[in-house]
């Protein structure tokens, strides 16, 4: 930084302000002209003067200044508090002498008045010199639990990775059948939620929790979590259109189907994180007014997810982290998680006339951001197997919302209030990209037996997801027996399924008998033998004219003879053919 630049940065300050600054910088005989004062102050902060000024600050102030210059150039009290546990007491200024700090905290006075001014922004011209003098303060490590999280009544630890690996393809197969539908907001219909229960490898997060002591007598139900998460993910990732009719798997879904489960989960997480058209915050259904005008106050959910995932990548895998600790740590992140871009005046609890969340103190970090974080962790990242969960029942688990208008009848603000801690799994580390590989558990031995006569028999329990696949491809004969049938194979191919999926699936049971393998090859060949040649238009022509048109190079290149007096032309060539026919002195009706 050059001195003239520094002088320029003080040039807009009043003479009174500059006099006060110069006084604080230890100058006695002050000039009277504003320009001279600016020159004086700038010279005092140039070179060694700046170092001397920093030396007069205390540790917290230096930390705050260092973080500011190495971050975004301004002091962020929330960041300071959450990241370093530092609270800067504001300088108590004498209104007559703004440079005088009554608290006697000279450092703060210097920090506030000299280096940053009232906007908390460091004087841009000083940022680089300060960077040279102050090293960037390292971010304190995230506090992790030693062992399991502290026990609480009703706490359950949910290990999610295996479940996710077992469930993913099943859900995809269910989506393929068209059994899943989504509302306009991207969340599944109640019938879809019921349908998906069949493919869950393990019970839902809070399954059976109503039986826990003390949980009875509440009017607020927790509701499904994974049955909502999976279809939402399928929709958000564009794996399935989730609409009525036709095959319900897109090319992205088909590609995911062909991937090993852990790769597909990684792909799913990546796609979901970028989806802007589904906002998980909607799952906090106690907060109303989220649609309509209320929707305008929300930030882009893709940005929110990106911040959370970035921070999760820094969490050591395999160690439990209290939600509160992670929340604080997240607050200290370089990018701030914000659910709403502006005060959410349209959001309210139970009844809008009782007050809304736009008022100060009603939309704080704990109410909006921490609730959102819990949704993402419990409903989506746990479903994807990224994090294990430690939860208690949500009723009364996080009572910080009690003071809000309209909260009197709520036993919890969100069904995710019971989240106490989480742990990034090995699978999660792979999905988040903090590890390049994941050692997928060996697949369970297949209980299917494929016979040369084309029968497929299950000698054990067939997971519903496998049953969906088998029913989609094969002719079901009994509850545990299917038959490979060419007609059924061709029908499945026509529905858009890939024969290689079936081949790979059956091959898990051992080498396919030659007859079965050939049957599949044959079906594949027959499926691809006939291809769509586009649509054609046929028209009647007198026989002699047909001969003429076919013989002329201008028209002959477009025309094919169907009958003696019938010609056909591709729809795509229709206009050109008409034009050519007209050029020959004839006309085709439109």
């Amino acid at each position, binding site marked *: 930084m050059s001195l003239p630049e520094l002088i320029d940065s003080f040039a807009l300050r009043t003479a009174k302000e500059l006099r006060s600054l110069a006084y604080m910088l230890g100058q006695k005989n002050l000039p009277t002209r504003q320009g001279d004062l600016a020159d004086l102050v700038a010279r005092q902060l140039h070179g060694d003067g700046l170092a001397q000024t920093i030396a007069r600050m205390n540790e917290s102030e230096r930390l705050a200044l260092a973080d500011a210059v190495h971050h975004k150039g301004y002091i962020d009290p929330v960041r300071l508090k959450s990241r370093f546990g530092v609270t800067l007491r504001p300088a108590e200024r004498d209104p007559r002498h703004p440079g005088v700090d009554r608290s006697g905290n000279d450092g703060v006075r210097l920090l506030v008045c000299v280096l940053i001014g009232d906007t908390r922004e460091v004087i841009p011209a000083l940022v680089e010199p300060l960077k040279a003098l102050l090293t960037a303060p390292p971010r304190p490590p995230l506090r992790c639990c030693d062992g399991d999280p502290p026990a609480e009544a009703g706490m359950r630890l949910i290990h999610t990775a295996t479940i996710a690996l077992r469930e993913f393809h099943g859900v995809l197969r269910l989506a393929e059948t068209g059994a899943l539908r989504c509302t306009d907001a991207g969340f599944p219909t109640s019938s879809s939620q019921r349908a998906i229960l069949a493919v869950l490898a393990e019970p839902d997060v809070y399954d059976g929790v109503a039986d826990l002591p003390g949980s009875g007598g509440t009017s607020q139900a927790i509701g499904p979590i994974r049955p909502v998460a999976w279809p939402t993910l399928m929709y958000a990732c564009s794996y399935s259109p989730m609409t009525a009719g036709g095959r319900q798997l897109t090319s992205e879904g088909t590609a995911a189907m062909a991937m090993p489960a852990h790769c597909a989960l990684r792909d799913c997480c990546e796609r979901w994180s970028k989806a802007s058209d589904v906002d998980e915050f909607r799952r906090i259904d106690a907060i109303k007014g989220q649609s309509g005008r209320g929707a305008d106050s929300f930030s882009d959910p893709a940005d929110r997810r990106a911040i959370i995932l970035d921070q999760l990548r820094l969490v050591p895998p395999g160690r439990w982290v209290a939600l509160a600790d992670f929340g604080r740590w997240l607050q200290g992140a370089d990018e701030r998680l914000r659910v709403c871009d502006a005060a959410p005046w349209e959001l309210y609890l139970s009844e809008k006339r009782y007050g809304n969340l736009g008022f100060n103190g009603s939309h704080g970090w704990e109410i909006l951001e921490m609730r959102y974080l819990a949704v993402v962790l419990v409903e989506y990242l746990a479903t994807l197997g990224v994090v294990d969960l430690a939860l208690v029942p949500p009723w009364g688990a996080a009572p910080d919302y009690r003071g809000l208008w309209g909260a009197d009848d709520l036993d919890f603000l969100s069904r995710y209030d019971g989240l106490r801690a989480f742990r990034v799994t090995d699978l999660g580390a792979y999905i988040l990209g903090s590890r390049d590989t994941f050692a997928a558990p060996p697949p369970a031995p297949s209980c299917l*037996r*494929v*016979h*040369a*006569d*084309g*029968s497929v*028999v*299950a*000698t*054990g*329990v067939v997971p519903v997801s496998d049953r969906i696949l088998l029913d989609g491809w094969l002719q079901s004969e*009994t*509850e*545990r*027996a299917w038959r490979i049938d*060419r007609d059924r194979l061709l029908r499945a191919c026509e529905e858009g399924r890939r024969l290689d999926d079936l081949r790979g699936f059956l091959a898990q049971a051992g080498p396919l*008998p*030659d*007859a079965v393998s*050939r*049957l599949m090859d044959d079906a594949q060949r027959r499926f691809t033998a006939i291809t769509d040649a586009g649509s054609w238009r046929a028209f009647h022509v007198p026989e002699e004219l047909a001969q003429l048109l076919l013989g002329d190079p201008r028209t002959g290149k477009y025309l094919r003879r169907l009958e003696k007096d019938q010609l056909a032309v591709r729809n795509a060539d229709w206009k050109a053919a008409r034009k050519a026919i007209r050029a020959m002195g004839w006309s085709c009706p439109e």
Partner: protein
Amino acid sequence: MNDPSRPLIIQGDLTVLVEVDHPRYADARECLAHCAELVKSPEHVHSWRITALSVWNTCAIGKDVSATLRMLAELSRFPLPETITVRLNEWAGRWGKLTLERSPLDDGLVLQCRDAALAGHIRTLPGIHHHLGEQLSACAIQVPLLERGKLKVALTRAGYPVDDRAGFTPGEALSLAMRKELPGGAPFALRDYQHAAVDAFLAGGSTRGGSGVLVLACGAGKTVIGLAAAAQVGAATLVLTTSTTAVRQWISEALDKTTLTPDQIGAFDGTVKDLRPVTVATYHILTHRDSATGGFPHLDLFQRRDWGLIIYDEVHQLPAPIFQVTAGVQARRRLGLTATLVREDQREAEVFALIGPKRYDSPWRELESQGWIASARCTEVRLPLTGAAFAAYCQADPRRKLRAAAENPAKLDAIRVLLARHPASPALVIGTYVDQLGAIADSLDLPLLTGSTPQPRRDALYADFRAGRIRALVVSKVANFAVDLPDAALAIEVSGSFGSRQEEAQRLGRLLRPKPGDNVAHFYTLVSADTIEQDFALNRQRFLCEQGYHYAIVDGIA
């Protein structure tokens, strides 16, 4: 519960799956053999089905169904479906409610009902009343002797099986024994499973035995088992079989394996009508009639001698008129022999009621693994149909497309290659269309054997074939049944009757007699690729695949 240490998977539709490689497979098979029908036995998992008939089979041989249920539960990987317990108990409960006994006055039969209510009820069942005589008591109803079979069939169809304990007439005594040494000097003895089959049929001579069906693979020696049963009974025996050739083979086997002399055994067919203590007749001659509305002049064969045993060869092919006559000979011992109980006409209930319950069943592959029948290597050779033949196929009427595909000229070269590939194997070229077979025989200079070939000529060809003077025979459908060609080790099927699984199995059966050396036979089926023949071939092969045979599929032949 899913206990993989148990081999049975019992499904709600009463089908039972058994893992063949399971350590307790033998226990499972033993249990199922008494209470279920083997539906198919492919390589990994065999399928059985429990039916009313199979349960009554269990009861008929004196097995306790509650013990069977306990056994099933003990062997079942998953909890028994409720339907199994309910249906088995319901069906078993029906058995023994009706017993047919000889009248104490020996003037007919008495149907004993367990209670008076049942006696009243069965009279109300449709189609029953006219088979019954007068009411002797609250629980006893007189049955005319001639109604014995018809009543059993009608009651079985109505769901009330009859435990027939009226016994059998001893029949005309006949001194007959199995040889211990064959005429050529080679030692001879029944195989273990043949002994077991005969014992199961006779049930120690009790009234529970003496009628029933034995299910064995082609080549497993059903003829020998029939002769052994006749020897045990020691009475005049009528053997009914499918063709004149088969008649000759029965007679030849009887003279070879038993102490019967030529004057004790006779043929009763289109050319010869010898009524001897052991008479072998064709179904065809028995059901022959001069006009479509005329009577069956030879059906009285059943009554023309005091038969102590009637043997029904290939019982799955029993024609309808024979059923009717059999209903009238229920006082005689009856033995059914077959490779499969599956009937295309769904008349298994008649077989059960009139011939008797299944007494013995042995999967083909088990006999093969024990070396009693040859190991077969099946190959489907797909040959392209090209040129004029393809054009003819494309233009053929849908009903004639199969023939157009089957008569693919490329098959001739393929036969040449296959015969050259197995130079030491006596071979059969088997087909359906006589014109095609004639052309093949002419081109390859091989003898042709069809339905019109006179019997002396056939016998001469068989003799030359056995002696090795003829390398290969071109045969039509006449070779499908009961032709005994012990040295055939290679079969080339050039055409077949649509999707007939039975024909495919019978043709393979021609090769299954044990072979010297590696005991391996080769079965090739030539089909025109991408034609309707390929689809039919798939269906034809299903039965054999269900029996655990693999078909290798090759495109073209080098």
